[in-house]
Protein backbone atom coordinates (compact mmCIF):
# COMPACT_ATOMS: atom_id res chain seq x y z
CA UNK A 1 0.00 0.00 0.00
CA UNK A 2 1.00 3.59 -0.35
CA UNK A 3 2.26 5.51 2.64
CA UNK A 4 -0.23 6.99 5.07
CA UNK A 5 -1.28 10.45 3.91
CA UNK A 6 0.15 13.19 6.06
CA UNK A 7 -2.64 14.94 7.98
CA UNK A 8 -1.38 18.39 6.99
CA UNK A 9 -1.86 17.63 3.33
CA UNK A 10 -4.99 15.58 3.50
CA UNK A 11 -8.10 17.66 4.00
CA UNK A 12 -10.60 14.93 3.30
CA UNK A 13 -9.96 11.61 4.91
CA UNK A 14 -12.50 9.97 2.63
CA UNK A 15 -10.45 10.34 -0.53
CA UNK A 16 -8.93 6.94 -1.10
CA UNK A 17 -5.48 6.83 -2.57
CA UNK A 18 -5.76 5.30 -5.98
CA UNK A 19 -3.65 2.40 -7.04
CA UNK A 20 -1.19 2.74 -9.91
CA UNK A 21 -3.39 0.36 -11.84
CA UNK A 22 -6.43 2.59 -11.67
CA UNK A 23 -4.25 5.57 -12.47
CA UNK A 24 -3.05 3.84 -15.64
CA UNK A 25 -6.55 2.74 -16.51
CA UNK A 26 -7.84 6.26 -16.94
CA UNK A 27 -5.35 7.07 -19.66
CA UNK A 28 -7.30 7.18 -22.92
CA UNK A 29 -4.58 5.34 -24.83
CA UNK A 30 -4.74 2.26 -22.61
CA UNK A 31 -7.19 0.33 -24.75
CA UNK A 32 -5.15 1.08 -27.85
CA UNK A 33 -1.88 -0.03 -26.24
CA UNK A 34 -3.32 -3.29 -24.91
CA UNK A 35 -5.11 -3.98 -28.18
CA UNK A 36 -1.98 -3.39 -30.22
CA UNK A 37 0.02 -5.71 -27.97
CA UNK A 38 -2.63 -8.44 -28.19
CA UNK A 39 -3.01 -8.16 -31.96
CA UNK A 40 0.74 -8.30 -32.62
CA UNK A 41 1.20 -11.19 -30.22
CA UNK A 42 -1.55 -13.21 -31.87
CA UNK A 43 -0.33 -12.65 -35.40
CA UNK A 44 3.30 -13.27 -34.46
CA UNK A 45 2.20 -16.58 -32.96
CA UNK A 46 -0.15 -17.72 -35.70
CA UNK A 47 0.90 -15.96 -38.88
CA UNK A 48 4.64 -15.38 -38.59
CA UNK A 49 5.41 -17.87 -41.38
CA UNK A 50 2.87 -16.35 -43.78
CA UNK A 51 5.09 -13.51 -44.91
CA UNK A 52 3.25 -10.96 -42.82
CA UNK A 53 6.43 -9.83 -41.12
CA UNK A 54 8.86 -9.72 -44.05
CA UNK A 55 9.48 -6.44 -45.85
CA UNK A 56 6.53 -6.71 -48.26
CA UNK A 57 4.20 -7.89 -45.51
CA UNK A 58 5.14 -5.08 -43.15
CA UNK A 59 4.79 -2.53 -45.94
CA UNK A 60 1.40 -3.99 -46.79
CA UNK A 61 -0.21 -3.57 -43.37
CA UNK A 62 1.70 -0.37 -42.64
CA UNK A 63 0.20 1.23 -45.70
CA UNK A 64 -3.33 0.12 -44.83
CA UNK A 65 -2.85 1.29 -41.23
CA UNK A 66 -1.45 4.61 -42.43
CA UNK A 67 -4.58 5.18 -44.51
CA UNK A 68 -6.74 4.63 -41.45
CA UNK A 69 -4.46 6.81 -39.34
CA UNK A 70 -4.73 9.82 -41.65
CA UNK A 71 -8.51 9.97 -41.40
CA UNK A 72 -8.51 8.88 -37.75
CA UNK A 73 -6.46 11.92 -36.69
CA UNK A 74 -9.07 14.30 -38.10
CA UNK A 75 -11.98 12.27 -36.78
CA UNK A 76 -10.33 12.06 -33.35
CA UNK A 77 -9.77 15.79 -32.93
CA UNK A 78 -13.29 16.50 -34.15
CA UNK A 79 -14.83 13.90 -31.84
CA UNK A 80 -12.97 15.36 -28.85
CA UNK A 81 -14.34 18.76 -29.89
CA UNK A 82 -17.77 17.16 -29.55
CA UNK A 83 -18.80 16.57 -33.17
CA UNK A 84 -18.86 13.87 -35.85
CA UNK A 85 -18.12 13.99 -39.53
CA UNK A 86 -19.93 11.33 -41.51
CA UNK A 87 -18.91 12.90 -44.81
CA UNK A 88 -15.26 11.78 -44.57
CA UNK A 89 -15.71 8.84 -46.95
CA UNK A 90 -17.62 10.89 -49.50
CA UNK A 91 -15.05 13.65 -49.16
CA UNK A 92 -12.31 11.15 -50.05
CA UNK A 93 -14.18 10.18 -53.21
CA UNK A 94 -15.05 13.78 -54.04
CA UNK A 95 -11.55 15.18 -53.53
CA UNK A 96 -9.97 12.39 -55.56
CA UNK A 97 -12.46 12.95 -58.37
CA UNK A 98 -11.85 16.70 -58.35
CA UNK A 99 -8.09 16.21 -58.70
CA UNK A 100 -8.64 13.85 -61.64
CA UNK A 101 -11.15 16.16 -63.33
CA UNK A 102 -8.98 19.25 -62.88
CA UNK A 103 -5.76 17.59 -64.01
CA UNK A 104 -6.91 15.09 -66.66
CA UNK A 105 -10.21 16.44 -68.04
CA UNK A 106 -9.42 20.14 -67.74
CA UNK A 107 -5.71 19.66 -68.29
CA UNK A 108 -4.59 21.84 -65.38
CA UNK A 109 -1.12 21.23 -63.95
CA UNK A 110 -1.38 18.66 -61.17
CA UNK A 111 -0.04 21.00 -58.49
CA UNK A 112 -2.82 23.47 -59.25
CA UNK A 113 -5.43 20.69 -59.24
CA UNK A 114 -4.20 19.54 -55.81
CA UNK A 115 -4.15 23.05 -54.33
CA UNK A 116 -7.60 23.96 -55.66
CA UNK A 117 -8.99 20.64 -54.41
CA UNK A 118 -7.58 21.27 -50.94
CA UNK A 119 -9.10 24.75 -50.92
CA UNK A 120 -12.45 23.34 -52.04
CA UNK A 121 -12.37 20.60 -49.39
CA UNK A 122 -11.47 23.05 -46.63
CA UNK A 123 -14.34 25.29 -47.73
CA UNK A 124 -16.78 22.36 -47.59
CA UNK A 125 -15.41 21.42 -44.16
CA UNK A 126 -15.93 24.99 -43.00
CA UNK A 127 -19.46 24.97 -44.40
CA UNK A 128 -20.20 21.74 -42.51
CA UNK A 129 -18.93 23.33 -39.32
CA UNK A 130 -20.68 26.62 -39.94
CA UNK A 131 -24.05 24.93 -40.44
CA UNK A 132 -23.56 22.85 -37.29
CA UNK A 133 -22.63 25.76 -35.00
CA UNK A 134 -25.18 28.13 -36.51
CA UNK A 135 -28.22 25.85 -36.50
CA UNK A 136 -27.28 23.88 -33.41
CA UNK A 137 -28.32 20.73 -35.26
CA UNK A 138 -26.50 17.49 -34.44
CA UNK A 139 -23.41 17.20 -36.64
CA UNK A 140 -24.54 13.63 -37.27
CA UNK A 141 -27.42 14.91 -39.42
CA UNK A 142 -25.62 17.79 -41.11
CA UNK A 143 -22.68 15.66 -42.19
CA UNK A 144 -24.99 12.80 -43.17
CA UNK A 145 -26.50 15.23 -45.65
CA UNK A 146 -23.04 16.00 -46.98
CA UNK A 147 -22.29 12.28 -47.18
CA UNK A 148 -24.99 12.07 -49.87
CA UNK A 149 -24.40 15.46 -51.47
CA UNK A 150 -20.68 14.88 -52.02
CA UNK A 151 -21.12 11.27 -53.13
CA UNK A 152 -23.78 12.39 -55.57
CA UNK A 153 -21.50 14.98 -57.15
CA UNK A 154 -18.63 12.47 -57.21
CA UNK A 155 -20.75 10.24 -59.47
CA UNK A 156 -22.48 13.04 -61.38
CA UNK A 157 -19.42 14.99 -62.56
CA UNK A 158 -17.50 12.15 -64.26
CA UNK A 159 -20.76 10.69 -65.61
CA UNK A 160 -21.78 13.90 -67.37
CA UNK A 161 -18.29 14.96 -68.44
CA UNK A 162 -16.66 11.69 -69.44
CA UNK A 163 -19.55 9.18 -69.48
CA UNK A 164 -17.72 6.99 -66.98
CA UNK A 165 -17.21 6.77 -63.21
CA UNK A 166 -13.46 6.23 -63.19
CA UNK A 167 -11.05 8.83 -64.52
CA UNK A 168 -7.54 7.54 -65.17
CA UNK A 169 -4.38 9.04 -66.54
CA UNK A 170 -3.46 11.04 -63.45
CA UNK A 171 -0.07 9.34 -63.33
CA UNK A 172 0.88 10.61 -66.77
CA UNK A 173 -0.40 14.06 -65.92
CA UNK A 174 1.64 14.07 -62.70
CA UNK A 175 4.89 13.24 -64.51
CA UNK A 176 7.47 15.86 -63.54
CA UNK A 177 5.07 17.75 -61.30
CA UNK A 178 6.65 19.32 -58.24
CA UNK A 179 3.77 18.81 -55.79
CA UNK A 180 2.57 15.33 -56.76
CA UNK A 181 5.59 13.45 -55.28
CA UNK A 182 4.69 14.94 -51.89
CA UNK A 183 1.67 12.62 -51.95
CA UNK A 184 2.60 9.82 -54.36
CA UNK A 185 6.35 9.59 -53.96
CA UNK A 186 8.56 7.40 -51.85
CA UNK A 187 11.47 8.33 -49.64
CA UNK A 188 14.46 6.50 -48.15
CA UNK A 189 14.84 4.64 -51.45
CA UNK A 190 18.63 4.66 -50.99
CA UNK A 191 18.30 3.02 -47.61
CA UNK A 192 16.04 0.30 -49.00
CA UNK A 193 18.42 -0.31 -51.93
CA UNK A 194 21.22 -0.71 -49.40
CA UNK A 195 19.13 -3.08 -47.28
CA UNK A 196 18.35 -5.08 -50.41
CA UNK A 197 22.01 -5.21 -51.39
CA UNK A 198 22.94 -6.24 -47.87
CA UNK A 199 20.42 -9.06 -47.99
CA UNK A 200 18.29 -7.72 -45.12
CA UNK A 201 15.16 -7.41 -47.26
CA UNK A 202 13.99 -9.31 -50.32
CA UNK A 203 15.07 -8.25 -53.82
CA UNK A 204 13.61 -9.17 -57.22
CA UNK A 205 15.28 -12.38 -58.46
CA UNK A 206 14.75 -11.79 -62.15
CA UNK A 207 13.04 -9.51 -64.65
CA UNK A 208 13.75 -5.91 -65.53
CA UNK A 209 14.02 -4.90 -61.92
CA UNK A 210 16.44 -7.66 -60.96
CA UNK A 211 18.50 -6.74 -57.92
CA UNK A 212 16.16 -3.98 -56.85
CA UNK A 213 14.45 -4.42 -53.49
CA UNK A 214 10.79 -5.51 -53.66
CA UNK A 215 9.95 -2.74 -51.20
CA UNK A 216 11.90 0.17 -52.58
CA UNK A 217 11.01 2.97 -50.19
CA UNK A 218 8.57 4.38 -47.68
CA UNK A 219 5.48 5.78 -49.42
CA UNK A 220 4.63 9.40 -48.59
CA UNK A 221 1.26 8.10 -47.37
CA UNK A 222 3.01 6.64 -44.31
CA UNK A 223 5.01 9.83 -43.76
CA UNK A 224 1.80 11.87 -43.91
CA UNK A 225 0.20 9.55 -41.36
CA UNK A 226 3.11 9.84 -38.93
CA UNK A 227 3.40 13.62 -39.34
CA UNK A 228 -0.33 14.11 -38.84
CA UNK A 229 -0.33 11.90 -35.74
CA UNK A 230 2.60 13.78 -34.19
CA UNK A 231 1.19 17.21 -35.05
CA UNK A 232 -2.28 16.21 -33.86
CA UNK A 233 -0.90 14.89 -30.59
CA UNK A 234 1.13 18.05 -29.93
CA UNK A 235 -1.81 20.27 -30.88
CA UNK A 236 -4.15 18.43 -28.54
CA UNK A 237 -1.99 17.98 -25.47
CA UNK A 238 0.60 20.74 -25.61
CA UNK A 239 -1.09 23.85 -26.93
CA UNK A 240 -3.68 26.37 -25.85
CA UNK A 241 -5.82 25.39 -28.79
CA UNK A 242 -5.76 21.79 -27.57
CA UNK A 243 -7.23 22.90 -24.28
CA UNK A 244 -9.98 24.65 -26.24
CA UNK A 245 -10.69 21.45 -28.20
CA UNK A 246 -11.21 19.51 -24.94
CA UNK A 247 -13.29 22.35 -23.51
CA UNK A 248 -15.50 22.71 -26.59
CA UNK A 249 -16.31 19.01 -26.51
CA UNK A 250 -16.50 18.66 -22.73
CA UNK A 251 -19.13 21.35 -22.22
CA UNK A 252 -19.57 23.98 -24.90
CA UNK A 253 -21.58 26.38 -22.70
CA UNK A 254 -19.09 26.33 -19.82
CA UNK A 255 -16.29 26.84 -22.30
CA UNK A 256 -18.07 29.86 -23.80
CA UNK A 257 -18.54 31.42 -20.38
CA UNK A 258 -14.79 31.34 -19.79
CA UNK A 259 -14.12 32.94 -23.15
CA UNK A 260 -13.20 29.92 -25.29
CA UNK A 261 -14.16 30.60 -28.94
CA UNK A 262 -16.12 27.35 -29.19
CA UNK A 263 -17.60 27.95 -32.64
CA UNK A 264 -14.24 28.75 -34.16
CA UNK A 265 -12.73 25.63 -32.62
CA UNK A 266 -15.50 23.41 -33.98
CA UNK A 267 -15.40 24.88 -37.48
CA UNK A 268 -11.61 24.50 -37.59
CA UNK A 269 -11.95 20.86 -36.54
CA UNK A 270 -14.45 20.20 -39.35
CA UNK A 271 -11.89 21.73 -41.70
CA UNK A 272 -9.25 19.42 -40.24
CA UNK A 273 -11.28 16.28 -41.02
CA UNK A 274 -11.81 17.59 -44.56
CA UNK A 275 -8.08 18.24 -44.83
CA UNK A 276 -7.21 14.73 -43.65
CA UNK A 277 -9.73 13.19 -46.06
CA UNK A 278 -8.17 15.17 -48.91
CA UNK A 279 -4.65 14.04 -47.94
CA UNK A 280 -5.95 10.47 -48.04
CA UNK A 281 -7.62 11.05 -51.42
CA UNK A 282 -4.56 12.73 -52.98
CA UNK A 283 -2.22 9.95 -51.87
CA UNK A 284 -4.66 7.37 -53.23
CA UNK A 285 -5.12 9.09 -56.59
CA UNK A 286 -1.37 9.52 -57.01
CA UNK A 287 -0.77 5.87 -56.15
CA UNK A 288 -3.50 4.39 -58.36
CA UNK A 289 -3.22 7.01 -61.09
CA UNK A 290 -6.99 7.24 -61.23
CA UNK A 291 -10.02 8.46 -59.31
CA UNK A 292 -13.15 6.34 -58.87
CA UNK A 293 -16.62 7.43 -57.84
CA UNK A 294 -16.81 4.69 -55.21
CA UNK A 295 -13.56 5.55 -53.43
CA UNK A 296 -13.71 6.08 -49.70
CA UNK A 297 -16.96 4.22 -49.17
CA UNK A 298 -17.63 3.58 -45.45
CA UNK A 299 -14.35 5.25 -44.47
CA UNK A 300 -16.16 7.62 -42.10
CA UNK A 301 -17.25 4.70 -39.95
CA UNK A 302 -13.83 3.09 -40.03
CA UNK A 303 -12.30 6.36 -38.88
CA UNK A 304 -14.80 6.66 -36.04
CA UNK A 305 -14.23 3.04 -35.00
CA UNK A 306 -10.45 3.57 -34.93
CA UNK A 307 -10.95 6.67 -32.78
CA UNK A 308 -13.26 4.86 -30.36
CA UNK A 309 -10.88 1.90 -30.07
CA UNK A 310 -8.29 4.55 -29.28
CA UNK A 311 -10.22 5.56 -26.18
CA UNK A 312 -12.11 8.67 -27.27
CA UNK A 313 -15.62 9.18 -25.95
CA UNK A 314 -18.39 9.45 -28.54
CA UNK A 315 -19.84 12.25 -26.44
CA UNK A 316 -16.71 14.38 -26.79
CA UNK A 317 -14.29 16.03 -24.41
CA UNK A 318 -12.01 13.06 -23.94
CA UNK A 319 -9.62 11.10 -26.10
CA UNK A 320 -6.15 10.85 -27.54
CA UNK A 321 -4.60 11.14 -30.99
CA UNK A 322 -2.00 8.50 -30.09
CA UNK A 323 -4.86 6.22 -29.06
CA UNK A 324 -6.65 6.84 -32.36
CA UNK A 325 -3.42 6.07 -34.25
CA UNK A 326 -3.09 2.79 -32.35
CA UNK A 327 -6.74 2.07 -33.14
CA UNK A 328 -5.92 2.58 -36.81
CA UNK A 329 -2.88 0.32 -36.50
CA UNK A 330 -4.97 -2.45 -34.91
CA UNK A 331 -7.44 -2.00 -37.71
CA UNK A 332 -4.84 -2.29 -40.47
CA UNK A 333 -2.92 -5.16 -38.91
CA UNK A 334 -6.04 -7.24 -38.31
CA UNK A 335 -7.53 -6.58 -41.75
CA UNK A 336 -4.35 -7.57 -43.56
CA UNK A 337 -3.31 -10.16 -40.96
CA UNK A 338 -6.48 -12.19 -41.46
CA UNK A 339 -5.66 -12.22 -45.15
CA UNK A 340 -2.13 -13.44 -44.47
CA UNK A 341 -3.38 -16.01 -41.99
CA UNK A 342 -5.76 -17.33 -44.61
CA UNK A 343 -8.88 -16.55 -42.60
CA UNK A 344 -12.07 -15.79 -44.53
CA UNK A 345 -11.96 -12.00 -44.94
CA UNK A 346 -15.63 -11.47 -44.17
CA UNK A 347 -14.81 -12.39 -40.57
CA UNK A 348 -12.98 -9.07 -40.40
CA UNK A 349 -16.33 -7.34 -40.13
CA UNK A 350 -17.34 -9.60 -37.28
CA UNK A 351 -14.13 -8.74 -35.52
CA UNK A 352 -14.74 -5.05 -36.14
CA UNK A 353 -18.20 -5.11 -34.62
CA UNK A 354 -17.05 -7.06 -31.58
CA UNK A 355 -14.05 -4.87 -30.87
CA UNK A 356 -16.13 -1.71 -31.33
CA UNK A 357 -18.64 -2.94 -28.78
CA UNK A 358 -15.89 -3.79 -26.30
CA UNK A 359 -14.19 -0.44 -26.81
CA UNK A 360 -17.38 1.53 -26.21
CA UNK A 361 -18.22 -0.42 -23.07
CA UNK A 362 -14.69 0.04 -21.72
CA UNK A 363 -14.76 3.76 -22.51
CA UNK A 364 -18.08 4.23 -20.77
CA UNK A 365 -16.72 2.50 -17.70
CA UNK A 366 -13.61 4.68 -17.74
CA UNK A 367 -15.70 7.81 -18.11
CA UNK A 368 -17.69 6.89 -15.03
CA UNK A 369 -14.48 6.43 -13.16
CA UNK A 370 -13.18 9.86 -14.14
CA UNK A 371 -16.34 11.80 -13.49
CA UNK A 372 -17.32 9.80 -10.45
CA UNK A 373 -20.87 9.17 -11.70
CA UNK A 374 -22.54 5.95 -10.70
Amino acid at each position, binding site marked *: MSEAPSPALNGDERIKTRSRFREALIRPELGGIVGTAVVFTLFLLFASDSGMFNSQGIMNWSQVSAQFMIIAVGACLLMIAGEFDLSVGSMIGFAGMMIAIFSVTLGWPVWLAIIVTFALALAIGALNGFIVVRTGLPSFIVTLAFLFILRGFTIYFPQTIERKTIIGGVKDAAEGDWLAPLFGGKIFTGLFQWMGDAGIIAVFERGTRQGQPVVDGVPMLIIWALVLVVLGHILLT*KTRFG*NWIFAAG*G*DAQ*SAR*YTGVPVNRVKILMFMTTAFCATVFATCQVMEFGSAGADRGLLKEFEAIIAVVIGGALLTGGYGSVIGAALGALIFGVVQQGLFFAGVESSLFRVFLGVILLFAVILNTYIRRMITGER
Partner: protein
Amino acid sequence: MSSNHNPIIEMKGIEKHFGSVIALAGVSLKVYPGECHCLLGDNGAGKSTFIKTMSGVHKPTKGEIHFEGKPLNFERPRDAIAAGISTVYQDLAMIPLMSVSRNFFMGNEPLRKFGLIKLFDHEHANRVTLEEMRKMGINLRGPDQAVGTLSGGERQTVAIARAVHFGAKVLILDEPTSALGVRQTANVLATIDKVRKQGIAVVFITHNVRHAMAVGDQFTVLNRGKTLGTAKRGDITPEELQDMMAGGQELVALEGSLGGTV
Protein backbone atom coordinates in the same frame (compact mmCIF):
# COMPACT_ATOMS: atom_id res chain seq x y z
CA MET B 1 -7.65 50.85 -3.64
CA SER B 2 -10.79 52.92 -3.65
CA SER B 3 -12.29 53.65 -0.28
CA ASN B 4 -15.13 51.55 0.96
CA HIS B 5 -17.51 54.44 0.54
CA ASN B 6 -17.32 54.43 -3.23
CA PRO B 7 -19.21 51.61 -4.83
CA ILE B 8 -17.19 49.59 -7.33
CA ILE B 9 -20.28 48.93 -9.36
CA GLU B 10 -23.53 50.82 -9.35
CA MET B 11 -26.63 49.80 -11.26
CA LYS B 12 -29.13 52.66 -11.67
CA GLY B 13 -32.75 52.05 -12.61
CA ILE B 14 -32.04 49.00 -14.71
CA GLU B 15 -34.96 47.92 -16.88
CA LYS B 16 -35.00 44.93 -19.13
CA HIS B 17 -37.86 44.03 -21.41
CA PHE B 18 -38.12 40.82 -23.42
CA GLY B 19 -40.75 41.65 -26.00
CA SER B 20 -43.87 42.40 -24.00
CA VAL B 21 -42.50 40.88 -20.82
CA ILE B 22 -40.94 43.27 -18.35
CA ALA B 23 -38.32 41.20 -16.57
CA LEU B 24 -36.76 44.09 -14.68
CA ALA B 25 -38.71 47.24 -13.87
CA GLY B 26 -36.10 49.63 -12.56
CA VAL B 27 -33.64 47.93 -10.24
CA SER B 28 -30.90 49.91 -8.50
CA LEU B 29 -28.01 48.49 -6.57
CA LYS B 30 -24.61 49.52 -5.22
CA VAL B 31 -21.87 47.03 -4.57
CA TYR B 32 -18.82 47.95 -2.46
CA PRO B 33 -15.39 46.36 -2.57
CA GLY B 34 -14.70 43.92 0.24
CA GLU B 35 -18.37 43.39 0.85
CA CYS B 36 -20.72 40.57 0.14
CA HIS B 37 -23.92 41.83 -1.37
CA CYS B 38 -26.69 39.27 -1.24
CA LEU B 39 -29.31 39.36 -3.94
CA LEU B 40 -32.38 37.49 -2.77
CA GLY B 41 -35.56 36.64 -4.53
CA ASP B 42 -37.89 33.82 -5.34
CA ASN B 43 -37.83 31.98 -8.65
CA GLY B 44 -38.82 34.32 -11.47
CA ALA B 45 -38.07 37.44 -9.45
CA GLY B 46 -35.56 38.59 -12.05
CA LYS B 47 -32.34 37.65 -10.27
CA SER B 48 -30.85 35.85 -13.25
CA THR B 49 -31.80 38.58 -15.70
CA PHE B 50 -30.28 41.15 -13.39
CA ILE B 51 -26.91 39.44 -12.99
CA LYS B 52 -26.81 38.67 -16.68
CA THR B 53 -27.17 42.39 -17.28
CA MET B 54 -24.35 43.00 -14.84
CA SER B 55 -22.10 40.44 -16.51
CA GLY B 56 -22.71 41.65 -20.05
CA VAL B 57 -24.90 38.81 -21.30
CA HIS B 58 -27.94 41.12 -21.65
CA LYS B 59 -27.98 44.80 -22.53
CA PRO B 60 -30.35 46.76 -20.31
CA THR B 61 -33.38 48.31 -22.05
CA LYS B 62 -33.07 51.32 -19.78
CA GLY B 63 -30.79 52.36 -16.97
CA GLU B 64 -27.09 52.90 -16.36
CA ILE B 65 -24.21 50.83 -15.11
CA HIS B 66 -21.32 52.62 -13.43
CA PHE B 67 -18.16 50.66 -12.85
CA GLU B 68 -15.48 52.30 -10.69
CA GLY B 69 -17.31 55.59 -11.13
CA LYS B 70 -17.40 55.50 -14.92
CA PRO B 71 -20.43 54.65 -17.07
CA LEU B 72 -20.03 51.31 -18.80
CA ASN B 73 -21.62 49.54 -21.69
CA PHE B 74 -20.83 45.88 -22.11
CA GLU B 75 -21.29 44.46 -25.58
CA ARG B 76 -20.28 40.90 -24.73
CA PRO B 77 -19.58 38.84 -21.59
CA ARG B 78 -15.91 39.05 -22.55
CA ASP B 79 -15.97 42.84 -21.96
CA ALA B 80 -17.26 42.33 -18.45
CA ILE B 81 -14.62 39.71 -17.72
CA ALA B 82 -11.91 42.01 -19.07
CA ALA B 83 -13.18 44.84 -16.84
CA GLY B 84 -12.95 42.53 -13.82
CA ILE B 85 -16.49 41.28 -13.43
CA SER B 86 -16.49 37.50 -13.19
CA THR B 87 -19.54 35.31 -12.94
CA VAL B 88 -19.59 31.79 -11.57
CA TYR B 89 -22.64 29.95 -12.82
CA GLN B 90 -24.16 27.19 -10.79
CA ASP B 91 -23.83 24.21 -13.13
CA LEU B 92 -21.64 25.71 -15.78
CA ALA B 93 -18.51 26.39 -13.88
CA MET B 94 -16.33 23.44 -14.75
CA ILE B 95 -15.86 20.69 -17.31
CA PRO B 96 -15.90 17.36 -15.44
CA LEU B 97 -13.78 15.34 -17.89
CA MET B 98 -10.92 17.81 -17.84
CA SER B 99 -8.25 18.05 -15.19
CA VAL B 100 -8.45 20.70 -12.49
CA SER B 101 -5.46 22.51 -13.91
CA ARG B 102 -6.81 22.49 -17.48
CA ASN B 103 -10.12 23.81 -16.15
CA PHE B 104 -8.44 26.42 -14.01
CA PHE B 105 -6.65 27.93 -16.98
CA MET B 106 -9.44 27.38 -19.51
CA GLY B 107 -9.57 30.46 -21.70
CA ASN B 108 -6.48 31.90 -19.98
CA GLU B 109 -3.88 29.29 -20.87
CA PRO B 110 -0.34 30.20 -19.86
CA LEU B 111 2.05 29.96 -22.80
CA ARG B 112 5.72 29.10 -23.01
CA LYS B 113 7.86 29.74 -26.05
CA PHE B 114 9.20 26.60 -27.65
CA GLY B 115 11.25 27.62 -30.64
CA LEU B 116 8.92 29.40 -33.00
CA ILE B 117 5.69 28.08 -31.53
CA LYS B 118 4.02 28.72 -28.23
CA LEU B 119 3.01 25.78 -26.09
CA PHE B 120 0.69 25.40 -23.12
CA ASP B 121 2.89 25.78 -20.05
CA HIS B 122 1.59 22.79 -18.10
CA GLU B 123 4.29 23.05 -15.45
CA HIS B 124 3.29 26.60 -14.54
CA ALA B 125 -0.41 25.75 -14.75
CA ASN B 126 -0.06 22.75 -12.45
CA ARG B 127 2.00 24.64 -9.89
CA VAL B 128 -0.36 27.62 -9.73
CA THR B 129 -3.43 25.39 -9.57
CA LEU B 130 -2.12 23.38 -6.62
CA GLU B 131 -1.08 26.56 -4.85
CA GLU B 132 -4.41 28.34 -5.35
CA MET B 133 -6.37 25.25 -4.36
CA ARG B 134 -4.36 24.89 -1.18
CA LYS B 135 -5.12 28.53 -0.32
CA MET B 136 -8.82 27.72 -0.63
CA GLY B 137 -8.41 24.66 1.55
CA ILE B 138 -8.73 21.99 -1.13
CA ASN B 139 -5.98 19.43 -1.31
CA LEU B 140 -5.83 17.81 -4.69
CA ARG B 141 -4.40 14.40 -5.39
CA GLY B 142 -2.65 16.07 -8.26
CA PRO B 143 -3.25 18.86 -10.75
CA ASP B 144 -4.24 16.26 -13.35
CA GLN B 145 -7.12 15.03 -11.21
CA ALA B 146 -10.35 15.31 -13.19
CA VAL B 147 -12.84 17.89 -11.96
CA GLY B 148 -15.50 15.17 -12.14
CA THR B 149 -14.00 13.59 -9.03
CA LEU B 150 -14.53 16.76 -6.98
CA SER B 151 -17.68 17.41 -5.00
CA GLY B 152 -20.11 20.14 -6.06
CA GLY B 153 -18.82 22.48 -3.37
CA GLU B 154 -15.23 21.92 -4.38
CA ARG B 155 -16.10 22.65 -8.01
CA GLN B 156 -17.66 25.96 -7.00
CA THR B 157 -14.55 26.71 -4.98
CA VAL B 158 -12.29 25.95 -7.94
CA ALA B 159 -14.40 28.27 -10.09
CA ILE B 160 -14.23 31.03 -7.48
CA ALA B 161 -10.48 30.60 -7.02
CA ARG B 162 -10.10 30.79 -10.78
CA ALA B 163 -12.04 34.04 -11.03
CA VAL B 164 -10.03 35.56 -8.17
CA HIS B 165 -6.71 34.42 -9.61
CA PHE B 166 -7.49 36.08 -12.92
CA GLY B 167 -8.12 39.44 -11.32
CA ALA B 168 -11.84 39.62 -10.66
CA LYS B 169 -12.82 42.80 -8.82
CA VAL B 170 -16.47 41.87 -8.73
CA LEU B 171 -17.40 38.25 -8.30
CA ILE B 172 -20.96 37.28 -9.13
CA LEU B 173 -22.03 33.92 -7.74
CA ASP B 174 -25.24 32.54 -9.21
CA GLU B 175 -26.89 30.33 -6.60
CA PRO B 176 -23.62 28.65 -5.67
CA THR B 177 -25.16 26.81 -2.74
CA SER B 178 -28.56 25.77 -4.02
CA ALA B 179 -27.56 22.28 -5.12
CA LEU B 180 -25.19 21.55 -2.26
CA GLY B 181 -25.32 19.65 0.98
CA VAL B 182 -24.82 21.25 4.38
CA ARG B 183 -21.09 20.63 4.68
CA GLN B 184 -20.36 21.67 1.09
CA THR B 185 -22.43 24.81 1.54
CA ALA B 186 -20.35 25.68 4.59
CA ASN B 187 -17.21 25.30 2.47
CA VAL B 188 -18.51 27.61 -0.22
CA LEU B 189 -19.64 30.20 2.33
CA ALA B 190 -16.18 30.06 3.92
CA THR B 191 -14.69 30.62 0.47
CA ILE B 192 -16.92 33.66 -0.05
CA ASP B 193 -15.69 35.03 3.27
CA LYS B 194 -12.04 34.55 2.22
CA VAL B 195 -12.62 36.27 -1.12
CA ARG B 196 -14.37 39.23 0.51
CA LYS B 197 -11.46 39.71 2.90
CA GLN B 198 -9.17 40.09 -0.12
CA GLY B 199 -11.08 43.27 -1.00
CA ILE B 200 -13.18 41.78 -3.76
CA ALA B 201 -16.82 42.70 -4.09
CA VAL B 202 -19.04 39.64 -4.02
CA VAL B 203 -22.57 39.52 -5.39
CA PHE B 204 -24.15 36.44 -3.94
CA ILE B 205 -27.41 35.30 -5.49
CA THR B 206 -29.48 32.94 -3.43
CA HIS B 207 -33.01 32.21 -2.31
CA ASN B 208 -31.86 30.79 0.95
CA VAL B 209 -32.10 33.41 3.69
CA ARG B 210 -29.88 31.48 6.09
CA HIS B 211 -27.05 31.25 3.58
CA ALA B 212 -27.40 34.97 2.90
CA MET B 213 -27.39 35.90 6.58
CA ALA B 214 -24.24 33.82 7.13
CA VAL B 215 -22.00 35.92 4.92
CA GLY B 216 -23.93 38.98 3.70
CA ASP B 217 -23.04 42.60 4.43
CA GLN B 218 -25.93 44.02 2.43
CA PHE B 219 -29.17 42.46 1.32
CA THR B 220 -31.29 43.39 -1.66
CA VAL B 221 -34.55 41.62 -2.30
CA LEU B 222 -35.95 41.35 -5.78
CA ASN B 223 -39.61 40.66 -6.35
CA ARG B 224 -41.39 40.59 -9.70
CA GLY B 225 -38.65 42.59 -11.37
CA LYS B 226 -38.56 45.29 -8.71
CA THR B 227 -36.27 45.84 -5.80
CA LEU B 228 -37.82 46.06 -2.39
CA GLY B 229 -34.88 48.02 -1.03
CA THR B 230 -31.43 47.28 0.30
CA ALA B 231 -30.80 46.57 3.97
CA LYS B 232 -27.54 46.53 5.89
CA ARG B 233 -26.46 43.65 8.05
CA GLY B 234 -28.05 44.00 11.46
CA ASP B 235 -30.90 46.17 10.19
CA ILE B 236 -33.04 43.28 9.16
CA THR B 237 -34.08 39.94 10.56
CA PRO B 238 -34.19 36.68 8.63
CA GLU B 239 -37.96 36.60 9.07
CA GLU B 240 -38.36 40.01 7.45
CA LEU B 241 -36.18 38.94 4.53
CA GLN B 242 -38.17 35.76 4.06
CA ASP B 243 -41.40 37.75 4.08
CA MET B 244 -40.14 40.23 1.52
CA MET B 245 -39.02 37.43 -0.78
CA ALA B 246 -42.35 35.67 -0.61
CA GLY B 247 -44.14 38.87 -1.52
CA GLY B 248 -45.65 39.58 1.87
CA GLN B 249 -49.24 40.79 1.54
CA GLU B 250 -49.51 39.62 -2.05
CA LEU B 251 -49.24 36.06 -0.91
CA VAL B 252 -51.90 36.63 1.75
CA ALA B 253 -54.24 38.20 -0.82
CA LEU B 254 -53.62 35.32 -3.18
CA GLU B 255 -54.45 32.79 -0.50
CA GLY B 256 -57.71 34.63 0.14
CA SER B 257 -58.79 34.76 -3.49
CA LEU B 258 -58.12 31.09 -3.98
CA GLY B 259 -60.41 30.36 -1.10
CA GLY B 260 -58.15 27.88 0.59
CA THR B 261 -58.05 25.48 -2.33
CA VAL B 262 -54.25 25.38 -2.24
